[in-house]
């Protein structure tokens, strides 16, 4: 039996593979603070969002979380749950952001929104499920600061990639 794949399926698979690679490379670096990491794999999500639309971006993002966790051995662990909740939140906010009338957001805006939503969603899940202690909220603004920083940097990278790709194709 052979599954019929479309060109879009294959494109999503390629891009997801790229995102997974970055995800795993990144997990090899130690983190200065639990909960803070650059999230460079989201660059791919943003590039895909801009070039191929929200549906592809959602696929790439969720596939990355799923396969990344399988490869890292965190599937169905708390880490996976946090990762998934973050991805779902950021994909949700990107869907909303895409509906904005006018010129809307550019790569930096999308990336920033996604990073903030990712952190906020993840944090809420962590607080609800794992550490329901009020003192945890002290960490919240710190994590958001990191999200702001890394979200902007990722957005700039994503914008640069999109620009160069556009130059290549024209």
């Amino acid at each position, binding site marked *: 039996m052979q599954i019929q794949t479309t060109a879009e399926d294959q494109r999503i698979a390629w891009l997801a593979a790229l995102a997974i690679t970055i995800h795993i490379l990144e997990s090899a670096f130690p983190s200065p603070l639990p909960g803070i990491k650059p999230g460079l794999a989201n660059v791919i999500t943003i590039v895909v969002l801009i070039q191929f639309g929200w549906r592809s971006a959602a696929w790439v993002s969720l596939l990355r979380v799923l396969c990344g966790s399988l490869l890292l051995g965190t599937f169905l662990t708390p880490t996976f749950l946090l990762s998934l909740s973050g991805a779902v939140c950021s994909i949700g906010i990107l869907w909303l952001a895409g509906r*904005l009338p006018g010129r809307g*957001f*550019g*790569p930096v*805006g999308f990336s920033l*929104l996604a990073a*903030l939503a990712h952190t906020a969603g993840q944090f809420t899940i962590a607080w609800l499920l794992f550490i329901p202690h009020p003192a945890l*909220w002290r960490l919240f603004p710190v994590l958001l600061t990191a999200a702001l920083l890394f979200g902007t940097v990722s957005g*700039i990278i994503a*914008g640069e990639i999109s620009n160069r790709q556009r130059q290549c194709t024209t």
Partner: protein
Amino acid sequence: MMTRADWVLMVIALCALPLLYLHLWTPQDAYWDVGDTRAGARGSAKQEPEPSATHGAVADSATGLRIQIAAAAATITPLTPDRQVQVTGPIGESTIEIRAGQARFLSSPCPGQVCVHSGWLREAGQLAACLPNRISIQLLGSRPRFDAINF
């Protein structure tokens, strides 16, 4: 490369962050004091004279001692006067000593004696527990010294 919406978002985020810090980082005695001292134990503890000066810097941070036995409701007791409190858990009687604004397990019927070896609790937030006898004690106060290692 940045659209107007990007800039607006960035400015909003940059303005909101300091507010968040301000809101979440201002000292609030919500957790350590309020919920646990319904009976006004904090008030009565505050009216008591401060414990002896030997531990002055330490003693002013702890305002009470919470004693929890098994699943029963915790009791709050002031840190003065110096005394020994007998507490009965599932396997016997533990003795808790309160002296100079500090507290410790003086003796316990448990085999491991981990609670006794925990020593004196000196600062608000510190906790000692006896798992076999299901008793835990914790110093309460508005300015706990630690936050991440005891919850």
